């Protein structure tokens, strides 16, 4: 397992490198640049600015400089749009916010989703099952950009219980609505996936054996059925984990949380190459790390998988 982990980490380096190179060229292939605007700058000024940021160099030279700066100094370069802030500052400010509400959303979606799914499977074809399935489908059908305004309407404008936006250092009243808005649809998917997976497991031969041994329902479900049930769910959780961090641009906009999602999308629109690439590398590395964790989790769930 140790050798496997090392091997996977070694493979991650060229993976991320390819990601960076692809993004770099795609970004430069798009028309316009960070300093194009409605009123064109005088050519002399533009040339000066471009020289300051190294944009006058040939593309391969720009890429080379960018990569060497990262490897040697862990410097992702200056932002083209925000003066006196470099990419490291932008990420250091936005990422902890995204991480906080993203991770909380992930926990809520997983815990509530799993509980609903398991309860539905155990009480198959009873009102608990129907309720859980109904909730799951409703939650899955509601995208977070619909959930956001509804939550603000109800809890801020009508009831006045919660602040309508802002971050405030992540105090809990400011966290509740972003987390609910972000987690609902994933929770619905997890609940439905867990339910169907567990129903399948409960129909399998080894569960019949466990019942024939005289084990209690509790022991059958927690000791025998849970781990195999989790296999397909874990496969789904990996992408969800990365999505809740990247997909949070809606949350950032509706709840003015100031997370990385807004900065990311903004940078793409304004051709802020440095921020875009920096955040892409961050998400890429995160994806690689999460998929490694998922693969290691498989080995824990299923002893047949050995690395």
């Amino acid at each position: 397992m140790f050798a496997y982990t090392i091997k996977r980490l070694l493979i991650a380096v060229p993976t991320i490198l390819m990601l960076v190179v692809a993004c770099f060229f795609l970004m430069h292939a798009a028309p316009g640049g960070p300093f194009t605007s409605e009123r064109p700058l005088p050519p002399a000024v533009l040339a000066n600015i471009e020289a300051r940021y190294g944009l006058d160099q040939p593309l391969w030279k720009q890429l080379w400089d960018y990569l060497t700066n990262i490897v040697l100094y862990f410097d992702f370069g200056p932002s083209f749009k925000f003066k006196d802030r470099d990419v490291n500052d932008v990420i250091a400010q936005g990422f902890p916010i995204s991480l906080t509400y993203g991770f909380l959303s992930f926990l809520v979606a997983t815990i509530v989703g799993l509980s609903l799914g398991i309860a539905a499977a155990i009480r198959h074809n009873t009102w608990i099952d129907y309720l859980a399935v109904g909730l799951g489908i409703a939650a899955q059908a509601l995208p977070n950009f619909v959930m956001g305004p509804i939550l603000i309407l109800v809890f801020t404008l009508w009831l006045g219980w919660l602040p309508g936006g802002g971050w405030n250092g992540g105090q809990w009243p400011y966290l509740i609505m972003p987390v609910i808005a972000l987690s609902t649809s994933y929770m619905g998917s997890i609940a439905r996936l867990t339910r169907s997976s567990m129903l399948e497991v409960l129909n399998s031969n080894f569960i019949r054996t466990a019942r024939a041994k005289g084990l209690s329902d509790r022991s059958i479900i927690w000791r025998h059925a849970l781990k195999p049930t989790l296999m397909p769910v874990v496969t789904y959780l990996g992408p969800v984990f990365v999505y809740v961090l990247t997909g949070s641009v809606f949350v950032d906009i509706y709840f003015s949380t100031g997370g990385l999602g807004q900065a990311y999308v903004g940078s793409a629109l304004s051709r802020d190459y440095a921020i875009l690439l920096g955040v892409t590398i961050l998400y890429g590395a995160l994806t690689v790390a999460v998929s490694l964790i998922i693969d290691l989790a498989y080995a824990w769930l299923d002893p047949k998988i050995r690395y």
Partner: protein
Amino acid sequence: MSLLSVKHLSVTFDTPDGDVNAVESISFDVLPGECLGIVGESGSGKSQTFMAAMGLLTGNGHASGSVQLNGREILNLPAKQLNLIRGDDIGMIFQDPLTALTPHLKIGQQMAEVLNVHRHMTGAQAQALCLNWLERVRIPDAKSRLTQYPHELSGGMRQRVMIAMAMLCEPKLLIADEPTTALDVTVQADVLDLIAALQQEQNMAVVLITHDMGVVARMCDRVQVMRNGAFVESGLVEDIFANPGHDYTKRLLDAMPRIDTDSSRVLDANANVILDAIDVKVHFPINISGGLFGRKIPLRAVDGVSFKLHEGETLGIVGESGCGKSTLARSVLRLIEPTDGVVSWLGTDLTALDKRTMIQARKDLQIVFQDPFASLDPRMTIADSIAEPLRTFRSDMSNRERRDAVKDMMQHVGLEPTMINRYPHELSGGQNQRVGIARAMINRPKLIICDEAVSALDVSIQAQIIALLKELQAEFGTALLFISHDLSVVREISDRIMVVYLGRVVELAEAGELCTSPKHPYTQALISAVPIPDPIVERSRKRIKLTGDLASPLDPTAALRFLPSKLAAGELDYNPKLLETTPGHFVAEHD
């Protein structure tokens, strides 16, 4: 007084198509210490009877009637009370030991929880008793098994674990539901011996649910024959086999192929050799973990097999699971590319043909697979499936001619021509296999390979398909390569039999001679393990046992399994030769 008394038990299932009556008002008793056989074909309700008695029906099943254990009603008890009985007074073992054990729990953990629930035993005390039982079911190296996972054991060992687990609380009744159906014949014999020994030792009653009359003859005191949810006949095993009263029982007994019956025919001694396989090898590279990148070692699935097949002849290929018999068949057709060797078909080397000429050659080389349902395209009507070889090879035929040819072939294999527009899911397993045979036969090929073609079918259907194959062979003069793990079936249909062990031929002879006077120790063990559906004959036979487990095909010295003298002499790469001891009887070198 009876141990288990079942009265007017009925089982129904709610299905989207309405209620299905799986078991209809059956009554029987199990006496203490006896072995009761419940025999029937698939769908007869034999398993569901006991599932209902034990409260193990699936959610849509309902049971009514009465089931009494020692005079106490247990049918439809709440799970809490049933749990006191299940695993304690009554133990159960099931057909497929691979899926019947929880994959992520160690053997020791799975066993100990039975003791924990019923005897409140935990820790070292429970582990000691588990180990004791693993030793009593004769698992080699029992102590290390406690910390292994089910997938790390072979099928036979897993079934022993199931038995040990069922025996932990020394039940008064053991319900064994097709306990050996998924096992190889030599392993089956060992497991049956074990169950019989435990029955004696513990004075325990055993209910043996099976489709195999041979197993019944070997094991049971009394037998109940079941069909369509009801008993058609019951009585002492000797009486039923000697004088079956009911037509169905008679048909069932007649349908069972027997390894001690001669069904040979006279073949033309001058028939031409049509297929000549010379030193065929198929090696698969297997990844072995270790180091940063792992490494590959060859798995010798087929390791130097040579044989000849004559026109119109049937050559049976027998071997246990994993011996490479299917790989051999597929490599002959180049469905798997052979690693080495020559397959000469009517004088041309098939392995040297390019893709286009190989496709042309396939017109005369057809194959019928094991699973009749899975090997037909579910979205094609059966007529389309049967007609496909004609489309490929007979583009000169008009649609009408083709349809007539299909209808004609369907009649030959015993399918109503009116079924022409049916889909595979609308037919039974036996009918689908007839479609598979019709598809293979439609171009009148010179060779048909039957890869376990009857193994998935019930005995009575199996007998019909074998009769059909023989008829078609007589009519069209097709040669057959008949591959099966079941030696009785192979003897029934084959002219010559080839026994394969770990990718190598150990014995090849005329069918009758091989079965009556086998020379290689492996063949002898194999034949002595095949149960004969006759209690008097079966119980007087002597078993020849091989010691030790099946060697791994990854082991480079596997070929020397029966030549320990060479192994001892250090000649590790010695190749046992196939020697012709009497004319036409080839035996691999052995000690």
